[in-house]
């Protein structure tokens, strides 16, 4: 009986120290990663879903702005679905009507907000076009034309840094 108790005591005798050295490893790595990404200006814009951006060596950093996402299937303005890429591409003419409406609405909103704040709005609105690499020039041309005609002439094409 005594031996049994001794064994018991020995087993539980380990001091109450918590072994956290492994957790420190994880935290250190996470910390280093976060530091690195903050130094490199972090991601202001997240790539849209379903869009495979083309690669480019362009050095310019992205800025937060309204986003038009042209995926293989559909066209989105911000969170709003404008239409299916294939249909919009086939339409005649250069302007995409639902996109133009959405852009105008956004412009009005931005103008109203700027007025409330008493700020001046930029001459040409900034818009980021995230186009899938496989889209045709025709669709891109239509989207860019529509943006320029509706107050968003400052266009940035999103790419992945090569």
């Amino acid at each position, binding site marked *: 009986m005594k031996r*049994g108790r001794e064994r018991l005591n020995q087993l539980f005798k380990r001091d109450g120290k918590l072994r956290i050295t492994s957790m420190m490893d994880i935290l250190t790595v996470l910390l280093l990663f976060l530091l690195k990404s903050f130094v490199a200006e972090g991601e202001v814009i997240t790539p849209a879903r379903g869009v495979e951006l083309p690669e480019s060596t362009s050095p310019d950093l992205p800025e937060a702005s309204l986003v038009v996402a042209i995926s293989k299937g559909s066209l989105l303005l911000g969170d709003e679905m404008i239409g299916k890429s294939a249909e919009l591409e086939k339409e005649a003419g250069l302007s995409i009507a639902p996109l133009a409406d959405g852009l105008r609405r956004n412009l009005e909103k931005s103008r109203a907000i700027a007025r409330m704040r008493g700020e001046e709005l930029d001459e040409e609105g900034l818009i980021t076009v995230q186009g899938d690499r496989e889209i045709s020039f025709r669709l891109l041309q239509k989207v*860019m034309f529509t943006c320029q005609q509706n107050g968003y002439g400052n266009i940035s094409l999103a790419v992945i840094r090569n």
Partner: protein
Amino acid sequence: MRRKRHKRTLTEVAKDLEILPLMNLFVVLIPMLLLSAVFLEMSVVRMSPPAESAEGPDDPGDKLMLAVTITPKHYVVEGIDIGTTRVKRDDVGGTEQLRSTLEQISMEHPENKNVMILSEPETKYETIVQVMDITREAGAPRVSLLGTDGIAKERIR
């Protein structure tokens, strides 16, 4: 006898949880995931608004009217007084040839910063971005994107 056995199994279970191997797993997994996330670094190709390029499509520096046309099989480089150069796209060194052609033109005409990229309606966006990269690196950062069917001109950069 039964009691003793019972006690033994009880004490065995009450041992410390071995989380050290689990921690090791995380320490290996997390850096791998983090590294793969960093690879997708986004940047943009900026295009300045039309208002900025007040000179319009025929600005004074644009005497050369350098144009690169992207057809399904060729890159056609043309300009005023520099003749027409056709580079086969399918060749292994196709893009390199295009690059050296443009660099040569840049050397001969150092003041020219403009280039027009004409694409057909079916040209892939990816191809256009690649050609824009090449023209930018070859010394012509101001690009205009045009369509070969002449529907509209997009003045950019």
